[in-house]
């Protein structure tokens, strides 16, 4: 394969990804718009202080006009997409801030939480798989069972139980806050189910890779069991788990809604929950789009990483 072909293929691949990412963003923008418009209740009333507030008709009309809610739905939708195209996420009803500013302020903690949970789950999964797979029947089975149990735990329940044990009872870790120590419990409650899941997938592929002839071939060259695992098998075994990681990033970002609430952490998950309950359309859609963007970026990075690990994948995509 000459360099020109490779570059061309890479370029067309990137273009395809960009188009794919664009359509993902478009659909998620539309889903958010629809969801927030079919919601029962009136965002203006939510904005102006709930049921027993006594806003004057003039105040209501002013608010409607200010956020364009007095226009026909189709026009609102068109304007919404048009502004998005220009990178304008609008102004949040409920926060009295530009959505971009809210995201700038709130996205960091969520991204940190997501990445730390992803990293933690991979570390746990890889350690468990590397150390135990096919090492010993009992050990293998026990570790696989632990992974299965981990994958079955609802992060929501796990978070509450961890909070109760480590923050309320033992008081080893702070129950809330934005410090590094306060990151541990939310990370763990997200990482255990995901780590179990990745571990299970990786264990299967690790075992399958161990059966491959090249493993035997490597052994006949004098490699030790550990060398074979780390140098050869691991590389093959991580691929399926890696493929799932983009999805995992999206799931983690979604689960942040719950975990951030339980641990009273700041972040876009909790903000989204509040935005939806306030029917704050610009903020909710801004956060959803941001999350979708992160997914698109994550899947692109992971695809690149996969191609780095398995160069055969480079040509495989259309």
């Amino acid at each position, binding site marked *: 394969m000459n360099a020109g072909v490779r570059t061309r293929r890479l370029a067309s691949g990137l273009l395809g990804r960009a188009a794919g990412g664009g359509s993902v963003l478009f659909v998620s923008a539309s889903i958010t718009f629809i969801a927030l418009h079919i*919601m*029962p*209740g*009136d965002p*203006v*009333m*939510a*904005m*102006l*202080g*709930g*049921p*027993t*507030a*006594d*806003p*004057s*008709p*003039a*105040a*209501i*009309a*002013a*608010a409607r006009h*200010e956020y364009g809610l007095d226009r026909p739905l189709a026009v609102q939708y068109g304007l919404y997409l048009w502004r998005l195209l220009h990178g304008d996420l609008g*102004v949040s009803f*409920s*926060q*009295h*801030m530009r959505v971009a500013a*809210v995201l700038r*302020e*709130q996205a960091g903690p969520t991204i940190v939480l997501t990445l730390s949970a992803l990293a933690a789950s991979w570390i746990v999964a890889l350690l468990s798989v590397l150390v135990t797979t096919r090492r010993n029947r009992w050990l293998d089975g026990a570790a696989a069972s632990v992974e299965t149990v981990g994958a079955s735990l609802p992060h929501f329940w796990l978070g509450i139980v961890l*909070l109760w044990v480590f*923050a*309320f009872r033992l*008081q080893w870790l*702070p*129950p*809330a*806050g*934005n410090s590094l120590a306060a990151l541990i419990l939310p990370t763990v409650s997200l990482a255990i189910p995901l780590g179990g899941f990745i571990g299970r997938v990786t264990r299967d592929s690790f075992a399958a890779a161990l059966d491959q002839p090249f493993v035997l071939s490597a052994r006949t060259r004098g490699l030790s069991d550990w060398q074979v695992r780390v140098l050869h098998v691991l590389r093959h075994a991580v691929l399926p788990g890696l493929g799932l990681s983009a999805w995992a990033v999206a799931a983690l970002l979604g689960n942040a809604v719950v975990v951030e*609430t*339980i*641990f*009273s952490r*700041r*972040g876009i998950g*909790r*903000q989204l929950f509040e935005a939806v*309950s306030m*029917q704050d359309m610009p903020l909710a859609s801004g956060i959803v789009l941001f999350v979708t963007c992160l997914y698109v970026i994550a899947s692109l990075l992971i695809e690149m990483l996969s191609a780095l690990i398995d160069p055969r994948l480079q040509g495989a995509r259309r």
Partner: protein
Amino acid sequence: MRAEHRGRAARLAVLSALVAVAGCHRPRTSVASKGPLRGGTLVYATDREPICLDPHVAGDMPQVFVAEQYLDRLVSMDRDGHIRPWLASSWDISPDGRSYTFHLRHDVSFTDGTPLTAEAVRANLDQMRDPHTQSTTAGGYIRQYVGTDVLDAHTAVVHLSRPYAAFLEVLAQGFLGIESPRALARSRDDNCQSPVGSGPFRIVRWDHQSDIVFARNPDYHRAPPTARHQGPAYLDGIVWKFIPEPQVRFASLQAGELDVIDNLPPEDELPAAKNPELRLLVADRPGNPTHGMLDTRRAPFNDIRVREAFVCSADIDGALSSVFFGRYRRAGGPLSPTTPFYSPDFEHAKDYDPLRADRLLDEAGWRRGPDGIRERHGVRLVVEIPERASLAPADRTLWEQVQATARQTGFDVRLEPMSDTQANQRVADWDDDVALGYWNTNTADVLRIVFGSAFLGRTGIGGHHQNNSGFSDPAYDRIMEAALETRDAARRRVLYHQAQAIISSRYLQITTYPQTTRLAIRSDVHGVRIEPSLGVTSLYDAWLSR
């Protein structure tokens, strides 16, 4: 008097001017005797974060709590409900009651250096009235406001469209704090992020979803008469944290990471009371207590016998003893005990009496069906209660117990969980049988708002009626109007007693417990005060002994 929202202010609501300090442990005298110490930063944690720090915009309780620390008002209100000077050193009321002339202090400037002038008063009141401000509380309080004339730099004449006896009381509330006109001149949304006042603290930084940082205003020298000291605040600053989860908030307090938390949930009161490092500061709030309002506009509650039966069938005391660990007192009448003109005569009109409930339903023609639920003409005795998402778990459980006890009498009570907006819509459309809520305010006039026929109509577009019972009685309305017009306390007492009697005898609501403010304070924190006009936490007098 204006009322507060109940919906979104589920746990954090207004405290009256007449705070009854119940179960409040005084700071240990041995420490207090050394006198207040200066310095230190107090860490305060609350559940809800304001959406805007300017209390003029929208107008929700968390905003007042923040405003109390950095804003002053024109007038203040003391514990006895008397209006006292503050930024206005004196005022005159025109004989027709439509013009108020305020004489402002000459030595006040905002923390951005802008001096306090009559122009500033005009700018503030005008901004509250401007529809673009989206002010629902402050703006709603001063509907009668016409305009302000600036007589000289420190004399402002405020004109009202009609007499409004409550105007000064309203001005004493944190929602109508006076902000720097220079800061107000910025866009609404900019002002929301960093408003400027003349209070004991100034806002340094607002980290959304995390905290607000306040620093002492070193030039402060005009505390209201209700304060316990004069001059700048003792604290160097405040970190005002937002921790929505009650358990997490309490655990953090116990762990020593916080100094004061508010909205202590009932389940944490016992552990808090047992903990020697903590003090509780609990105060009942006046107004119409926490309740379920029965919708008399549709069957089955259009029949007073069914209403009475429902009220008698609910074992509220049992619920309070279990869910609230016996820490919440029962509110039996239409007014909370701390409300002016409250009468204890109606406390036991609604006690649990299942036998009476059975008899009433039998009389009304509702017969028990095979599953124990009563029926009449083939219609089951169904009671629909919309339950909004923000309802606290303890309240949920309380209504589940009402559901269970009412079922024994033959009611099929359906608790329907839904989003806040949907629940509001159901109540607005009279598509409910019981509307859950409470109404905190410092006047018995609340009974006019909650049960007056003038409040049956919808306000605004898709708005709400404040009278959720559908009760309409011209005689009752006349009593309430008469009570507003007279200034004779004895006359008012008689009128409000009549009103309470009427409401109680019509079985329009199941009242459960009075709203309360509940703070848990670490023992090395002193001088935390509850401000009388709206009953929010004031940290101006607070100091740390560590």
